[in-house]
């Protein structure tokens, strides 16, 4: 299998479309014959990242690179950045607004889930400039 790259533009604050990119990646991975366990890990990690981009950063871009040995997900936004990454990574920490809490978001479990379901995760963030989250899921 040669390298496959999927790219998406995620519009900000559009909750009705949030999750479409991860849904599309999920179905494409299934078609490529990736094992259900891996599909689940990638889909969950990506979904949480996609939602974060929508509710915290006014959208951004997602690139998914599928190689023979791993799946790399790069989520880049030009949002407000994360002031304290260590704090943001803690289960239960959330700055979600009342509006999005009413939709079921704001448990402060998204980033911990992304860490849990990916094999490697890196957050590059600058206040006022944006955030890039890179996650890798190994194929074996």
């Amino acid at each position, binding site marked *: 299998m040669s390298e496959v790259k999927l790219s998406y533009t995620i519009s900000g604050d559009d*909750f*009705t479309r*949030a*999750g479409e990119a*991860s*849904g599309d990646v*999920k179905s494409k991975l299934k078609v490529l014959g990736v094992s259900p366990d891996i599909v*689940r890990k990638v*889909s*969950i990690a990506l*979904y*949480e990242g996609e*939602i974060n981009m929508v509710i915290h950063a006014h959208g951004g871009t997602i690139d998914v690179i599928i190689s023979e040995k791993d799946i790399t997900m790069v989520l880049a936004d030009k949002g407000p950045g994360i002031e304290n990454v260590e704090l943001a990574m803690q289960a239960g920490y959330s700055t979600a607004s009342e509006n999005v809490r009413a*939709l*079921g*978001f*704001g*448990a*402060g*479990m*998204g980033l*911990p*889930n992304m860490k*849990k*379901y990916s094999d490697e995760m890196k957050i590059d963030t600058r206040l006022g400039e944006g955030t890039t989250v890179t996650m890798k899921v190994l194929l074996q």
Partner: protein
Amino acid sequence: MTVESLYTADGMKMVCGGDGSKQIDGVYCCDMLSVAMSKAPAGSCWVTVVCNLNTLAVASLTDCACVIIAGGVLVGDDVKAKAEAEGIALFSSEEPVFETALKVHGMLGA
């Protein structure tokens, strides 16, 4: 018990039938999507009051057998349409989360 048993269950209103032959292994209750995302067991009947498109996204990613929107929360047409498109079994119930879950739990034991 399969999802089909809920089609005609007392107090349960079917919004979308989905795959009636799916096995229900247990009941799961949670109203925070990212908690459900990591904790809802595959094959569970998920009872929640959160009803929007993201509820269905989580249900599908966690492979829930079905979703019940409890507490008389209105199921919007957008959610109904998405459930139909994705083949997710979706019900609504006027009773609160606990009572709804208890009912399904009782049916599982029967």
